[in-house]
């Protein structure tokens, strides 16, 4: 039971103190997220990038692994082309690219991952958990945390660190620290690093994999074995640190994505429930079932995160953003939802019952015709050069973009 405070909204962006990460305000009513964001224009980023160069040069000199300098976790979104470019070309490191399979890959996400490998000539290590276990964990996390993302996030945040431990690679480079970008947990000058505590508290919603094991469920120790975080003595023995690039570069996912599309041919695509054609386009459940659950739990959806970022960068006004928020939050999830429910073995009626238990129900929205010309032109300013995210509605893809039907035809 957490004390409920009166709702309070930031004077600049759309976030309120009901944000699940927590949000605080200064005496002028500006939220900590906006305060941290302001550092993107006030800090000397050339100096900060030199700090990063020094840090990575030290790692290259003292590395234990004969080949790789760092582990670099990626996903199939355009932003990650920029990340690999910085690490490989600007910092001159030899990264081992790793990716944890979400098992709900969109065709566009798989193509982007392949393109990263081809463009940058890097090794990619992809880890796929046992699909049966994965489904069991998705069910369990839905029941216990009203979330389907927990198994993916647990794997995504442990696999790169385990890879670093197993291969004796001293550094893991993450693109950004989500609590800092959204709610300003740290100042960039504090240079936060990867930690088990941040993972447990923010990424895993306070529930570590060991806590999933229960005699009341069918989850046993072997089911979460590959989701656990390495022990501290292992991290210390291998001197592993995890850094965030956003501490050294003024992080702007939209600008980086558009640069990646132009320079490397990264693909972007239309997603449901948002205007952002770059964000989370690798995962067919993110903007469908996950986004609906997010709204039902917290009263806002992913489009609010996208809009807050755009407001902070001054690319949209708060009033326009509020209209777009209302428009997108009321949109349906699209065809992906039924496929997901089939996969999980859940009916639409059960899902309706599930949503009714949660505190926020979406009601009242503005129609597309009510959006202004400026709002339409803002939405259209996002590049779309690939197929829609839901163009392929099969959740388990075999090999490189081949879906179930194609595999059957080949056989």
């Amino acid at each position: 039971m957490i004390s409920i405070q009166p709702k309070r909204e930031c004077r600049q962006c759309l976030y309120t103190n009901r944000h699940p990460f927590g949000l605080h305000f200064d005496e002028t009513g500006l939220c900590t997220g906006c305060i941290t964001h302001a550092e993107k224009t006030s800090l000397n980023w050339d100096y900060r990038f030199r700090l990063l160069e020094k840090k990575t040069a030290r790692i290259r000199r003292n590395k234990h692994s004969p080949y790789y300098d760092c582990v670099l976790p990626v996903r199939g979104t355009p932003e990650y082309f920029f990340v690999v470019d910085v690490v490989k070309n600007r910092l001159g490191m030899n990264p081992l690219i790793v990716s944890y399979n979400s098992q709900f890959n969109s065709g566009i996400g798989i193509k982007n991952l392949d393109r990263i490998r081809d463009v940058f000539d890097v090794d990619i290590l992809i880890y796929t958990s046992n699909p049966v276990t994965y489904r069991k964990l998705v069910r369990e996390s839905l029941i216990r945390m009203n979330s389907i993302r927990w198994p993916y996030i647990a794997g995504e945040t442990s696999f790169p660190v385990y890879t670093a431990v197993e291969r004796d690679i001293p550094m893991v480079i993450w693109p950004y620290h989500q609590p800092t970008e959204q709610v300003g947990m740290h100042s960039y000058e504090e240079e936060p690093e990867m930690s088990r505590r941040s993972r447990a508290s923010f990424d895993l919603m306070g529930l570590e994999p060991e806590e999933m094991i229960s005699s009341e469920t069918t989850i046993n120790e072997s089911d979460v074995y590959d989701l656990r975080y390495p022990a501290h003595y292992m991290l210390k023995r291998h001197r592993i640190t995890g850094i965030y690039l956003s501490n050294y570069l003024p992080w702007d996912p939209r600008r980086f994505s558009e640069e990646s599309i132009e320079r490397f041919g990264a693909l972007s695509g239309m997603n449901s429930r948002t205007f952002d054609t770059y964000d989370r386009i690798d995962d067919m459940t993110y903007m469908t079932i996950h986004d609906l659950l997010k709204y039902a739990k917290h009263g806002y959806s992913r489009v609010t995160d996208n809009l807050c970022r755009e407001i902070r960068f001054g690319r949209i006004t708060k009033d326009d953003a509020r209209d777009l928020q209302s428009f997108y939050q009321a949109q349906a999830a699209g065809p992906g939802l039924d496929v997901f429910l089939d996969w999980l073995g859940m009916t639409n009626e059960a899902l309706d019952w599930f949503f009714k238990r949660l505190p926020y129900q979406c009601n009242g929205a503005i129609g597309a015709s009510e959006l202004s010309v400026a709002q339409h032109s803002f939405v259209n300013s996002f590049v779309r050069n690939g197929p829609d995210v839901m163009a392929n509605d099969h959740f388990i893809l075999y090999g490189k973009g081949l879906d179930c039907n194609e595999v059957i035809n080949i056989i």
Partner: protein
Amino acid sequence: MEELYFAMCSKIIMAYKRLVGVIPVKDGRVVKSYGYKFCRPAGDVVSALRNLERWNADEILLLDISRQARIDPAIPMLIKKSGIATPLTYGGGIRCTNDVNTLLAAGCERFVLETIAFNAPEKVKELADLVGAQALIASLPLTGFGASLALEQYYAKRFGLAHEVLDPSLICRRMNELPVSEVLVIAFNREGYSGSFNLLGNDLCEKGFLSDINKGIIWFGGLSGNIAGRLLNDPQTTAVAFGNSNNEKELALTAIRGEFSRTGSAHHVRRPLLR
């Protein structure tokens, strides 16, 4: 023989000074506090408690800085949920024996008293009768350094004291009279800014009236590994405490222990094995 053995053990244990992990809490959630004036969100209480236990902190200090004259009912539940075994101290909103009983039941072992330490010493005596003076710590938020050490203005006003700078002998006498075992000296304005501790001047030896306090001192606020290491060499120091830095780096407390060797104070603290 057995008595001698336990006496030796206790002497060995007493020889160690403590490295305390502080968890500032506001409205039921962990925050990174900067001079108690500005906060950033820092996650949930349970994972913060468990994390410091994994890091082998000698003691955890859960400090509720919400400035409410009560215990947040969520906090005892969260402490119970964490299931930690590390000695746990709680501070913030303690006013009466009921509060202490609630916290004892949740698993707290020691209690930091601030408001009642200044304006209701008789209540401190009541609490000491209940749990013993060894379980009580008085909080002393200070600004300035050396001879100009002053009780922080906010507290001075709150306790109805006329002047910002209090008579040092008054503070000293109050601390010595209270039935508490230690004094938590907080560099109030520097809290949250690592390496900015300024209560004792640059050479860390202008202790002013603090040297007249006849209790052990726990230092907190703006410490770095280097400063804390030098403070540990002072015989009056019983512990050093770190807050915000625990959120920024993995194994931050372990790294701080490592820095003590540079200041010749490593022998003052335990060197536990990591799990």
